[in-house]
């Protein structure tokens, strides 16, 4: 009886207050509220403005290289001996991941709002690179906050951001990872609220960010839907994507949420295992709380203090999750499961060998779940997985974990 009633549509949220069920909302300091309300107004105008849509679409096509291919992974499929596996290849995008989809949309909005300075937070550095890229393209100064730990383990991306003209500010508070970078970005924003646009990288934060980022990322799912219909003449049986903050996953999932026959799985960072303290499975092992502007599932202690997550993948070790995922979990529409560092590494190696694609460690988590599920499925069933980032940035981390010295 505790299960919420099944909604008429899983795609209707959020409401005007930015709520997905009890999740979401606008939990921010008063200094930011007028700006958040202005952002919402501008976003409402932009999303129904044909000129805005046309500009974004042209950039998606000619700058990013969309649509990204839907690739049938023939050797992996035959190796696993079950369902047909397709990859939505957002790792082929300009800048190497899905992050650019969101950054282009938001920078156009920042321009419309007359903002003169961009700030962003980054974990793995993929969002930082994408933000620095669009800032360069649109000639706006950009400051990227990045946890000091991440600065160290993602050195190639730090260099990229600097080349692109961004200032990378290492954050030493906390454990020096994504959550701390987000705190610091919020502090910058609250200080420079008049001039500055905060380009949030994932489908989290105060309303309207979760909705806005989802809508920019939904291009992934819309394309995938068309492409699979073209290739197979029907919808897939299963969608799989990695969830850190959850933007690539919601981008793939959202256009399919009301297709009852499509199973959907989000894959969280299981780190060294859920029986240890070193994981980042907010949905599987966390509880609802309020952080960074929204109510959502969080890793926290009994006193409501946020705990640091762990994952081999810097893009997944955020102790929260976009609020829409929290709602999709509680409503039962999407299953969320953990994958460990070890399983992700094995998947990373397997894909590289079988398909000649080096995935980022984030989608390697999704792939590990595909590897678990595909063999038990029929050969005529279809899995679509979001291959949301390429692994070049992770080569050093993977080498270290595999005991190879470079």
């Amino acid at each position, binding site marked *: 009886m505790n299960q919420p009633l099944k909604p008429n549509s899983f795609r209707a949220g959020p409401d005007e*207050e930015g709520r997905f069920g009890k999740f979401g*909302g*606008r*939990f*921010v*300091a*008063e*200094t*930011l*509220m*007028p*700006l958040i309300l202005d952002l919402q107004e501008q976003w409402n105008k932009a999303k129904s403005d044909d000129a805005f849509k046309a500009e974004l679409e042209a950039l998606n096509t000619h700058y990013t290289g969309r649509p990204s291919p839907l690739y049938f992974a023939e050797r992996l499929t035959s190796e696993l001996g079950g369902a047909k596996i397709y990859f939505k290849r957002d790792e082929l995008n300009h800048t190497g991941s899905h992050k650019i989809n969101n950054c282009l949309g938001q920078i156009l909005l920042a321009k419309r709002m007359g903002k003169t300075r961009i700030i962003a937070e980054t974990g793995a550095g993929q969002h930082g690179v994408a933000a620095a890229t669009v800032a360069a393209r649109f000639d706006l100064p950009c400051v990227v906050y990045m946890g000091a730990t991440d600065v160290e383990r993602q050195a190639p991306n730090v260099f990229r951001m600097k080349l692109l003209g961004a200032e990378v500010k290492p954050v030493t*508070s*906390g454990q020096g990872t994504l*959550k701390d970078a987000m*705190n610091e970005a*919020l*502090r910058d924003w*609250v*200080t*420079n*609220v*008049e001039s500055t646009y905060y380009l949030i990288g994932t489908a989290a934060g105060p309303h309207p960010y979760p909705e806005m980022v989802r809508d920019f990322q939904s291009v992934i799912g819309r394309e995938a839907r068309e492409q699979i219909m073209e290739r197979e003449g029907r919808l897939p049986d299963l969608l799989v994507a990695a969830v850190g903050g959850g933007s690539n996953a919601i981008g793939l999932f959202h256009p399919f949420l009301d297709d009852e026959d499509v199973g959907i799985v989000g894959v969280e960072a299981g780190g060294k295992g859920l029986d240890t303290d070193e994981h980042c499975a907010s949905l599987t092992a966390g*509880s609802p*709380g*309020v*952080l*960074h*502007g929204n*109510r959502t599932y*969080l890793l*926290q202690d*009994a*006193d*409501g*203090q*946020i*705990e640091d997550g762990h994952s081999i993948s810097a893009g997944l070790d955020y102790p929260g999750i976009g609020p829409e995922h929290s709602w999709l979990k509680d409503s039962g529409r999407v299953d969320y499961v953990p994958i460990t560092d070890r399983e992700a590494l094995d998947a990373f190696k397997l894909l590289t060998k079988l398909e000649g694609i080096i995935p980022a460690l984030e989608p390697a988590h999704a792939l590990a779940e595909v590897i678990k599920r595909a063999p038990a499925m029929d050969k005529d069933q279809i899995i679509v997985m979001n291959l949301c980032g390429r692994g070049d940035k992770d080569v050093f981390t993977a080498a270290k974990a595999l005991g190879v010295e470079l």
Partner: protein
Amino acid sequence: MTKRMEQRFADLKSEGRPALVTYFMGGDPDYSTSLGIMKALPRAGADVIELGMPFSDPMADGPAIQMAGRRALKGGQTLARTLDLAKDFRKEDQTTPIVMMGYYNPIYVYGVDRFLSDALEAGIDGLIVVDLPPEMDEELCLPALAKGINFIRLATPTTDDKRLPTVLKNTSGFVYYVSMTGITGSALPDPSRVAGAVERIKGHTNLPVCVGFGVKTAEHARLIGAAADGVVVGTAIVNQIANTLDSEGRATADTVESVATMVQGLASGARAARLDAAE
């Protein structure tokens, strides 16, 4: 509402001087030192106490208060223990208003109803919750007001005349004017601009307006106090505590005393404010 807050501001008005509102972090660096500091504050001239609730992710605070929160958490502070601080304080002081200040998540996890009951019992008079704007009033503000606990809202330079009525609607106790956009511990803004802002807010409310962010010295307290009903000092006090700690971050024999000395100075500054204005 609990009566202490209203009474205190009424008394100050008849004395013709602004309130000195002092912030410290509950449990920094340990429970008993923190209780010692809390008890010393009114004796040193503080009129209202802001009792900080430590949170792991203080998004609106500068480095000083971040560090204070970390020290408190490391010392085992929890929301329950912060309520205990107030309860212990009330054993000897039944008149100084206490406002708990912090972020929403620990309260949400504690349970809103349970928290409000326990806060009332502990002698809490008001709450300042940084990440609960008026749009989120149903979360804690309205339940708190229903229980008789003041909900004190922050107004900022970005709170324009159009938005002020929204911000003031369910505010009680006093209005906390954050004198700049920014995090705690920033530099002092131009006092004349502060005076203009206070006047603007007073055009919308009869509540006392207290001003904070950037007040560090007796001279600052005098300047800001001349224009407002109260002066809030936080980071300077928290820094004073930090400066007396040993290399391991533990309290020393000087900790409580040096905070008391500093607050005495701030109090004399605040008291001088209206004498200036009267001349």
